[in-house]
C-alpha cells in the first residue's frame, strides 16, 4: 500500500480523511475540504435554495435538519438532494431494524446508497452522520419536554462531543494562577478528550491535545507540573511548549537502515492545537477556529456577573476535589439552572435561609439561552406563608458551632448567591463566601466527572480564607448542600434509563424561555435546551 491509502481514515459513512488532511466523499471522491475545518457544520449551515442543489430537488434544507439522514446530500456537491423524504424515512426505519426483521424487497425501488445511509449508519458507528432511528424525534412541545433518550444514547453522546465540546464553544480549562511561569502546564479535559494547557517560553498560554501524533498515547499523566518539553514515553517523540514536534528518535534510521519515510515532515505532525482565551485570569479553550471572541461569547449580562467575581484581582487556589457522578452531564446543568429544586431538596439551604423560594431572586439567560444566571439574596430562618409547601423546613435546627456559617458581604451588589452556568462545561459558584469553579467533564452518556476548583483572592486575610474553607463544607462530594445534588442526579439517571421513549416535563413557569424575577420556574433549563437543539440539530 502506498502512503496515502494506508493513512486514509473513514470519518463516517460519507467522508474519508487522507494523510495530507484532505477530506473526500466516500461515494464519488469529490473533495469536501480539509480536516481542520468542520465541513459538516458548514454544509448544514449553508443556505442554498433547494433547486440549486440539483434538478430533482423539491424540499428545503430545513427538512434535512428535522430528518437529517440525507447528510450525504448536504456534504457532497455531486450528490442529489433527496426528492422523496417519505422514501428516506422508510429506508431509515428499515436500517434501524435488525437484519432478521427486514423483509426482502421491502424498500422496493428505493436505493439506500442514494440516500446516504446503510447498515453501518444504523448501528451508530459515527458521530457526524444523521441520527439513524426514527424514535430520535424531539417531542412536539417546544422546550418544555425533554426525551429521556437524550440521557442514555451513545450516539447522542458522540454528537455532543463533536458539536458542543469540539464545536464553536469556549470550555473552561483553568486559571492563569495555575500556570504562573514559562513551562507551567496543566492537564484537563474538554468533553471526553484530554488536553494540555501550558505557558510557553514567551509567557503565552497554549493549548493542545494530550495525544501523541504518532500512535495516540496520552503521554502527559501529571495534572499540574513544570517542564521544558513534552516527551511521549512510548517512542520518545518530543514536543515543545507550543506543541510542535521537535524530535523523532531514529528519524534518519540506524546504520543506514530504516528510519522515517522520506516524505515525513515533522511540521505536519505537531499536537492538534486549541485556541486559548483568557479573561481576568480565567482560561478557556476551544477546538474550533471559528468560535467567536470570548467576550462576545459571554455576552453583556454574563460579563457583568463574571467580572463581579473575577474583577482582575489575583486568584488564590484553595484546592481541588473531583467526583465521578453516575449520571448524564446535562443533568448537572439542569440542576444548577433549576431554582425550583433548591427550595425543596436542599433542607440545609432552606433551614438557614441561604436560598428559599420566597426570597428576592432572578433567573437570567443570555439571548441564545446557552448561559444562565441564578441570583438570590439571603433571607432569615423563619417560616412564612410562602414556606408552607416546603415540607422539610426546619426552624428549630441551630448550629452548635456557628463558625460554619458566618457569611460576610464581599461583593458590590446585594446578591448573596450567584450561580452562573457557562456553556458548555462550567458552573461558577458564589454561595455566600464560598467560591468555586465546577467543571463538567462527560465520560459517557451515563457518567461525568465534576471537577471542583475552590479559590479565593490573593489579598484575602487569614480570617477570610478560613471562612471560605469552612463554608466549603456546603459544597462538593460531601457538601451539606451539593451532596444532595450528586445523589439526586444518580437517582434521576437510575429512574429514566429504562424509559428512553418517555420524556421529562419542564413546565414550571410556563413554556417560555424569558428571564424571570422569581424562583418557581424552569425557564433556564428550557433556554438551555433551546440552544442545545440548535447546536445538535435535533
Amino acid at each position, binding site marked *: 500500500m502506498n502512503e496515502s491509502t494506508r493513512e486514509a481514515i473513514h470519518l463516517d459513512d460519507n467522508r474519508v480523511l487522507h494523510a495530507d488532511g484532505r477530506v473526500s466523499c466516500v461515494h464519488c471522491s469529490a473533495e469536501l475540504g480539509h480536516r481542520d475545518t468542520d465541513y459538516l457544520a458548514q454544509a448544514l449551515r449553508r443556505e442554498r435554495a433547494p433547486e440549486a442543489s440539483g434538478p430533482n430537488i423539491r424540499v428545503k434544507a430545513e427538512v434535512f435538519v428535522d430528518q437529517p439522514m440525507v447528510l450525504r446530500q448536504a456534504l457532497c456537491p455531486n450528490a442529489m438532494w433527496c426528492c422523496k423524504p417519505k422514501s428516506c424515512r422508510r429506508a431509515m426505519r428499515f436500517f434501524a431494524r435488525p437484519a432478521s426483521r427486514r423483509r426482502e424487497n421491502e424498500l422496493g425501488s428505493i436505493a439506500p446508497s442514494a440516500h446516504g445511509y446503510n447498515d453501518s449508519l444504523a448501528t451508530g458507528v459515527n458521530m457526524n452522520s444523521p441520527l439513524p432511528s426514527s424514535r430520535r424525534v424531539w417531542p412536539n412541545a417546544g422546550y418544555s419536554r425533554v426525551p429521556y433518550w437524550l440521557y442514555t444514547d451513545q450516539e447522542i453522546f458522540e454528537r455532543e462531543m463533536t458539536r458542543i465540546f469540539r464545536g464553536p464553544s469556549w470550555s473552561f480549562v483553568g486559571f492563569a494562577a495555575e500556570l504562573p511561569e514559562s513551562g507551567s502546564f496543566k492537564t484537563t479535559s474538554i468533553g471526553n478528550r484530554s488536553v494540555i494547557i501550558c505557558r510557553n517560553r514567551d509567557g503565552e498560554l497554549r493549548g493542545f491535545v494530550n495525544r501523541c501524533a504518532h500512535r495516540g498515547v496520552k503521554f502527559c499523566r501529571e*495534572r*499540574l507540573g513544570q517542564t521544558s518539553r513534552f516527551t511521549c514515553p512510548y517512542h520518545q517523540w518530543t514536543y515543545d511548549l507550543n506543541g510542535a514536534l521537535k524530535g523523532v528518535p531514529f528519524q534518519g534510521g540506524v546504520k543506514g537502515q530504516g528510519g522515517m519515510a522520506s516524505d515525513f515532515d515533522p511540521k505536519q505532525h505537531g499536537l492538534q492545537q486549541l485556541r486559548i482565551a483568557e479573561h481576568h485570569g480565567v482560561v478557556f479553550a476551544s477546538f474550533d477556529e471559528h468560535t467567536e471572541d470570548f467576550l462576545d461569547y459571554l455576552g453583556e449580562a454574563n460579563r457583568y456577573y463574571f467580572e463581579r467575581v473575577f474583577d482582575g484581582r489575583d486568584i488564590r*487556589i*484553595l*484546592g*481541588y*476535589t*473531583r*467526583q*465521578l*457522578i*453516575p449520571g448524564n452531564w446535562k443533568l448537572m446543568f439542569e440542576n444548577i439552572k433549576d431554582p425550583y429544586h433548591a427550595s425543596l*431538596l436542599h*433542607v*440545609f439551604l432552606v*433551614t438557614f435561609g441561604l436560598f428559599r423560594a420566597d426570597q428576592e431572586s432572578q433567573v437570567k439567560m443570555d439571548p441564545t439561552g446557552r448561559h444562565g444566571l441564578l441570583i438570590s439574596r439571603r433571607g432569615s430562618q423563619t417560616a412564612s406563608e410562602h414556606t408552607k409547601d416546603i415540607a*422539610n423546613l*426546619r426552624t428549630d*435546627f441551630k*448550629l*452548635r*458551632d456557628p*463558625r*460554619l456559617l458566618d457569611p460576610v458581604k464581599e461583593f458590590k451588589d446585594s446578591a448573596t448567591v450567584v450561580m452562573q452556568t457557562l456553556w458548555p462545561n462550567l458552573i461558577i459558584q458564589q454561595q455566600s463566601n464560598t467560591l468555586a469553579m465546577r467543571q463538567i467533564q462527560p465520560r459517557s452518556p451515563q457518567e461525568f*466527572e465534576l471537577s471542583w476548583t*475552590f479559590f479565593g483572592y490573593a489579598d484575602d486575610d487569614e480570617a477570610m*480564607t478560613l471562612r471560605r*474553607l*469552612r463554608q*466549603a*463544607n456546603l459544597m*462538593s*462530594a*460531601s*457538601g*451539606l448542600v451539593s*451532596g*444532595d445534588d*450528586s*445523589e*439526586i442526579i*444518580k*437517582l434521576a439517571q*437510575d429512574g429514566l434509563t429504562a424509559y428512553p421513549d418517555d420524556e421529562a416535563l419542564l413546565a414550571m413557569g410556563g413554556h417560555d424561555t424569558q428571564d424571570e424575577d422569581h424562583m418557581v420556574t424552569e425557564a433556564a433549563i428550557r433556554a438551555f435546551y433551546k440552544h442545545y437543539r440548535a447546536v445538535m440539530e435535533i
Partner: protein
Amino acid sequence: MDVHGLRDQLEDLYARYVESLDDGPLDLWPEFFSVRCLYLILPRDNYERGLPLAVMRCESRDMLIDRVTAIRETMLYEQRYLRHHVTNIRVRAAAADALEVSANFSVIEVLPDDLPRVAMVGRYLDKLVASPHGGWWFAEKLCIYDSLLVANSIIYPV
C-alpha cells in the same frame, strides 16, 4: 512506655471508632474527639501541594455534632452500608499525654441495588491527646484519600 499495652489500646480505639461509623449510633462518633479538634477529609493532592481545601472540615466537637445532625436531619442521600477497614496502625511519636499515629483506611460501600465497591482508600494522620477520663481523644484527624476521584458522594465521615 508499655509498647504492647499501647498497641492494644490503639487497636481497641480504632475498632470502636470504626464501629461508631459502620454500626452506629453515629452520635458516638464526635465523642472520640477532644472539644477543640481538627477533623479533615481531603484529597491527597491537596495535602501534598499544601492546598488547604478539605471536603469535610470540622474545627470542634460541636462542628462534628452539627455534621451528624445534618446527616440525620437535612441531607438527602441514598441509604447505604459502610465498612471501614483500618490497618497498619503505627505510632510515629509518643509522649505521656500525646501521640502521633498513622494508619491506612479503606471504605467498602454497599448501595441497595449495587454490588459492594471500594468507595475510598487513604491514610489517617492523627494526633491524640490523653482524655481526662482515661484513654485517648483525637485532637487532630486528617483523612487523606488517595482515591482522588470520589465515587459520587461522601456522606458519612471516614
